[in-house]
């Protein structure tokens, strides 16, 4: 089984937004929201002694994702290959996971009222393609692959070149988007783009303790009711409609 990961080389990235537009068109991400986003020319210092970097971010498909637990319906889950996904059939758009993600990598799509985020272009992977952002990157700065495969580029960049994980005291949950950069660049990243604390909203905490059993019962009861109706239907000799 694979463990998918991405490495972004900030030394090569020019912050041109090709990746984010490709992602947007691939997944119809509405304007004003993003599965992946870029900040160009983040500059610190005093003229003329300055340093700067561009910044690219997205869902980190963490080892210990903080977004799964708060989800009341189980819409957010993780595949064995590490991809954290949202099942839009189950998502009720409550936004608890959005608050829980320390990287702000999730948004509620206003057109569908469902949560959306990067899934490493899983559909493309199934077709043998790379994620859209990787394919189009004009600086060849994004690398995607299997961290368990010693021959993969990401393996080399992570284990041999020492690509860095964007973690801090707020959140250390094993992000699987790694970064390469000059020490100056990584300094800026740490200062400006480190993860925040995962926010478990009071309702979400309440959910865990009180609401969860109630909702579980309700869901089960609803189905039980439907089952009763269904079998009543059969008993009355009505043919179920096949649509």
């Amino acid at each position: 089984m694979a463990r998918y990961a991405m490495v972004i080389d900030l030394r090569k990235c020019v912050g041109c937004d090709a990746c984010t537009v490709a992602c947007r068109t691939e997944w119809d991400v509405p304007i004003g929201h993003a599965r992946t986003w870029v900040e160009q020319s983040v500059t610190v210092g005093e003229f003329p002694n300055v340093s700067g970097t561009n910044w690219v971010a997205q869902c980190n498909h963490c080892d210990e994702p903080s977004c799964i637990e708060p989800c009341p319906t189980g819409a957010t889950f993780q595949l064995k290959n590490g991809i954290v996904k949202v099942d839009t059939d189950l998502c009720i758009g409550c936004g608890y996971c959005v608050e829980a993600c320390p990287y702000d990598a999730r948004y509620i799509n206003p057109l569908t009222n469902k949560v959306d985020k990067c899934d490493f272009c899983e559909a493309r992977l199934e077709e043998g393609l790379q994620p859209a952002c990787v394919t189009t990157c004009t600086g060849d700065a994004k690398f995607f692959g299997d961290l368990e495969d010693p021959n993969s580029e990401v393996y080399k960049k992570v284990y041999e070149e020492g690509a860095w994980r964007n973690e801090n005291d707020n959140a250390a949950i094993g992000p699987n988007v790694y970064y390469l950069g000059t020490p100056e660049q990584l300094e800026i990243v740490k200062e400006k783009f480190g993860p925040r604390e995962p926010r478990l909203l009071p309702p979400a905490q309440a959910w865990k303790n009180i609401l969860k059993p109630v909702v579980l019962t309700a869901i089960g009861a609803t189905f039980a009711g439907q089952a009763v109706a269904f079998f009543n239907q059969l008993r009355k000799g009505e043919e179920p409609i096949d649509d």
Partner: protein
Amino acid sequence: MSISRREFIKRGALTAGALTILSGTTVKGLNKKNFPKGWKGRQRVKEIPSICEMCFWRCGILGNVDKHGKLLKIDGNPNHPLTEGRLCARGNAGHKLAYDPDRLKYPLMRVGKRGEGKFKRVSWDEALDFMAEKLKKIKAEYGAEAVGFFPHGIQARFFEHLMKGFGTPNIVEPAFAQCRGSRDVGYKLTFGNSVGSPEPLDFENTDLMVFIGTHIGENVFTGQNLQFANAIERGAKLIVVDPRFSVAAAKADYWLPIKPGTDTALLLAWMHVLIYENRYDKEYIRKYAIGFDQLKKHVKDFTPEWASKITGLPASLILDTAREMGKYYPKVGIHPGRHVAWYGNDSQRARAMAILTALLGSYGRPGGIYLSSKIPAPKYPSGKNPKPGPRADGAGTVYPFGSRGLGITNGLIDATYDEDPYPIKAWIVYSQNVLQSIPDPWKTKEAIDKLDLFVVVDIMPMEQYLYADLVLPEATYLERYDDLYTVKNAKKPFAAIRQPIIDPLYEAKPGWWIAKETAKRLGLEEHFQWETIEEYLDYRLSGLGKTLQQVQAKGIVVYDKGTPYYDFSKPIHFKTRSGKIELYSQTLKDYGFDPMPVYEPVEEVPKGYFRLTYGRSPVHSFARSQNNEILHGYMPENELWINSTVANQLGLSDGEYVRLENQDGILSNNIRLKVTPGIHPEAVFMVHGFDQKSPALRLAYKHGASDNYLMSRVNIDPLSGGTGMRVNFVRIIKNGQPVMVSGAESIVPKFKKNTKTRTPKKRIVVPQAATEAGESEEGC
């Protein structure tokens, strides 16, 4: 309520799934085949290769089309030799151009006054009959040269062909005078060849890249960007000279935050160090260059200390960077720049860059500038063009080194305005944006007032369309065939085709159709002897041993016979007057110009003002893409970069809106401040192309500020005719009041008297044209 069997089972499964997950177990390995829904890749039925036109770089694309013929998404074409399947933000957003609801949809004829934007819809027949009738009348009365043609890009080639057949010499593109003209003049005078496009920089092999104003990363051309990034990864060093801390500067080993306008002083000092410290390529210079002794004498006093006082750069930094070049030559890639129309001394600055390149021995050598190759794509047989009359734009005469292939836009606008040397009665603007790309748009409007016929062929209703007598809607690059696109400046030169990915929307027509139909009405059918565009392309591809059909699947034919470097085992002839690299130019001397570049100080920034500089963003092209739904979403308006120390002094804060007033009292639209340590205190910077003034551009209208509308004056480069545009000064207006340091005063009255740009120029006559006519080059 009755439920179906399938629905029942599905709900049961969902419930079971929900219960499992909710009870705390993470389901691993779940992989529903139909999920996620609606991925476009699954709706794709065709992938059609073509070439992009979101900018002039023309990268390879693949249009993903669904079964209804709708364009779902654009990908890069992996067969493209320069981009390897990559595509920039604009290319990725290209479908939004085709599907822009604000597009020009039908031929329109003006019914109101010019500028009012009142039109009636007409048929193509009516439109073309009207245009042809007018053109014939103007030709009969004033001669063919009374028609000016403003083309851009390969889409305009067929109409350009028609205009040459019609007999006008007045064909002008901003690619020359507003962009890279002076660069090409400087390099041609030195090496005998202009650099051309794409710039043939051998970043694959370079050890040191040198950028002077070039801002790759913000100015994104996918292929060049890729090579740049790969060179960085490879460990190539980078020197960036720029008053702004650009994306490239942030990656540089040396950033030289130069005082704007003083680049030539730096270049001369670099030459001084290389020559006087014996760090130049002596053998290359001895064998292939003339004028070294004169140059050595010329730069004797141009020490780093001298340049330090002028440029504001530490002398040690100038010295160190010169020594870096001396260490890595000939594998030094000095980017010749692209938009170089800065101060009016631009051809001489380009000469200085070319001479520096020569001293490092890097022209025609690995790691430097490689050579372009020819591509055998024959022209379709055509009727003979009439001998055109004298040009009105001054190319080859007033501006002796002005290109007669690309012409001088501002020269033709001046001629129209002044009716000198003869009246210009018609303009046909084809894919150009004359009010946002050529400075002093007021003068352009006044020139338009003098026309009997003003035709705009375009995709979007840009401001200029408001003034047009006739508006012709052009098909987008996604909807048409175009002329064959040949790329000579590639190590493996290639030809690429543009072919329709979708059918033209509305009544938009491709350029070849418009030109051919107009030719019929002008009695110029002999210039369009092909029946179909496919037949035309077949003919041109025959030189590469291909048919159109064979090329359609990949979109690209690579012609693997180029030799990108000089073979130094054989004698080398440079196409200069002497046959050698001309460090000293006798040609320039003969025309009364400095034979070697000298530093001429530019006008100082008045107290309380800033020098207005401008450049690119990776999410917009020129003034062209601001209405694209996606790109507008990324950057709906531009920002004004201002130095943070200066902003603090003036009490200005990041994110607040101000206006700008230039030296002539011209006021900009609102613009948001970007307070940053990454810009020279003397300058402010904005991305070009904003504050679109056409209300028909519903997204872009009045968003941001227009740099072009603050350029009420220019310094003309006497060699090329190029418009130096960084000679405008602005002050900041906040809440209707100027924000200036104490003691500073308005300079408006002083400059209002200066009507230099409106005064007809004294025309000098030179004995013979210094440039060859008829060169056809790719523009920017």
